[in-house]
């Protein structure tokens, strides 16, 4: 389904925050490659740099050391507008707190990335409707976020993340704000999205959820502890 197969490559990536006197090393010397279509879970204690890594991969922030190549392009060499285009066209984000626009309907929310890429109104609505069907909310198109449950809101957010058929889907603790039942169904949905040539990377605290991923990345104090591929297929 995704338009482009994208390889992600981190070469000696570091992110350092200069806060007052002490510098915080959120990421140190991270070497990682994601092949197109990988489904990976990102684990680590709080403050280990999971979100930072996800932001780097999603071109929301550029590394202060090393290089990040997205589909062969050095992200560090791009300006703000080019980074925005890259995010809009090749990356889908899912946040822990959904971040839907509260005044807009589910359909409008899903259509936002399409609008930002200049997709015409008709096509926008048709695609947004299709995506809502896909996440099982075809009958909720005109509902506003306040009228949806947390799990449903996160499904809308996932539909939005898929709007421009990105090659990379990044989710930062997508079940963190949900109860276990809703969380499980969201994870199920995310699992369904793998295997379409799309790279899916999910930050989670939940070892059980992580164990279902084909690859588990572990971070500790900003360092990569392991990045083993568990198996090539879906675990039994």
């Amino acid at each position, binding site marked *: 389904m995704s338009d482009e197969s994208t390889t992600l490559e981190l070469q000696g990536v570091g992110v350092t925050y200069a806060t007052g006197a002490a510098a915080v090393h959120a990421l140190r010397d991270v070497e990682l490659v994601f092949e197109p279509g990988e489904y990976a879970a990102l684990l680590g204690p709080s403050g280990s740099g999971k979100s930072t890594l996800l932001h780097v991969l999603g071109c929301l922030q550029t590394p202060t050391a090393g290089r990040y190549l997205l589909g062969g392009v050095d992200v560090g060499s791009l300006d703000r507008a080019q980074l925005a285009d890259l995010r809009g066209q090749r990356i889908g984000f899912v946040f822990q707190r*959904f971040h839907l626009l509260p005044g807009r309907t589910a359909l409008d929310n899903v259509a936002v990335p399409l609008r930002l890429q200049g997709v015409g109104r008709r096509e926008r609505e048709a695609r947004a409707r299709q995506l809502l069907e896909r996440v099982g909310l075809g009958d909720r198109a005109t509902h506003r976020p306040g009228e949806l449950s947390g799990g449903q809101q996160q499904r809308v957010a996932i539909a939005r993340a898929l709007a421009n058929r990105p090659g990379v889907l990044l989710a930062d603790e997508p079940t963190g704000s949900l109860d276990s039942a809703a969380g499980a169904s969201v994870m199920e949905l995310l699992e369904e999205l793998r295997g379409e040539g799309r790279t899916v990377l999910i930050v989670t605290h939940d070892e059980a959820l992580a164990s279902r991923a084909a690859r588990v990345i572990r971070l500790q104090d900003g360092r990569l502890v392991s990045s083993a591929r568990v198996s090539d297929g879906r675990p039994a």
Partner: protein
Amino acid sequence: MPRAIGEVLAGLAADRTRILVVALGVTWGTLGLTLLLATGVAMHAATDETIEVGGADLLRFWSGTTSRPHAGLPAGRRISFEVDDAELVRAAVPELRAASLEYQAGSVQARVAGRAPTNLRVHGVGSEFSRLRGFVPEPDPEHGRVLNERDVREHRRVAFVGRTVLRRLFGDVPIEDVVGSRFELRGQAFTVVGVRDARPPLGNYSGRDEDKLLIPETTWRDLFGARSAVYLIAGLHGRELAEAAKARVRAVLGARRGFDAEDTDALGCVDKTVIDAEVRGITVGVLALTGIVGVLGLLVALVGVGNAMFVMVDERRREFALLVALGARPATILRQRIVEALAITLLGGAAGIAVAGMLLFGIRQIPIGDEGRAYLGYPELSWSVALGTAVALGVAGGLAGYWPARRAAAVDPVEVLRDE
């Protein structure tokens, strides 16, 4: 229940109220600016016209008494104008474009057959007087003609009258009917050839112009004998020539009448260019003041727009951060915020201009009399005023929106969307 965005953005409805309040502020500022500008411009134009109505670039000489001895003649001699003084100075003083004597006789009995007699002030004038002093008939409907050169040459018994004179002589009759009518002056039959228009002039002397009855100077002398003229009216080729012209007129008449060319008591002069300049200065001052006050008011309104934009941008930080994260270019966010500020400003401004237009219509209906109109004019929403206001609004709205817009475009999604 997650309400991360909800909390911060709960204000789309609240924003609508804020936008309305800000737009109303701009409406108020624009209304003030437009009204002040329209009034100032009308006042300026009306006063300029009124200066012209009484005749611009004029010198009015009167004969007095010498204050110093000259060429063996003692001080204290009475100086008077002579019949050909107007021709004399016009020929000898190149700064002058025209000149006319003005004779005056007060309390002259006049009557129309079948009506009670009335006493009038009768002015004897040369053929150039009407043009110099702005005595013109209403052009539409035509109210006759002014006194001309032939009237003077042929000692005609014709009169050009002011409106008050007309009413006192003929009563309440249509002006068109009066032109060509006859009346008696000192027992002699006269014909009305024209009626002065109603506009009041700047700088009345010897009563109001509408109280005056003009007849040819030759006819006047036939009627009242060899009395001296009261004034010598001279028109300049340009207002900058006033001093030179005054000096030369005094030199020419001084040589002939025997008084010192510097003796301002022997030949006095009222320089209308000075009065005109003073009045013009006042209206320019008023115009500048109204402009400044109006612009200041608008600025205050626009500081409000800027402020409200900052507040709105801060409240919508999450929305902008999200849009940037989802692929909106910062430049697009910037542009949208500026457009937003412009839209609020122009919306409020358009309302202000519309209300101003209605108020000005009302103001024009207020009866303030000819005298008031002569200086206040008819304030209206001219294209120049509306355009000037619109440009001021556009520029200021853009400026008011620019810095908040930059703040909006600079949001860092990582910082704003961090999930605590």
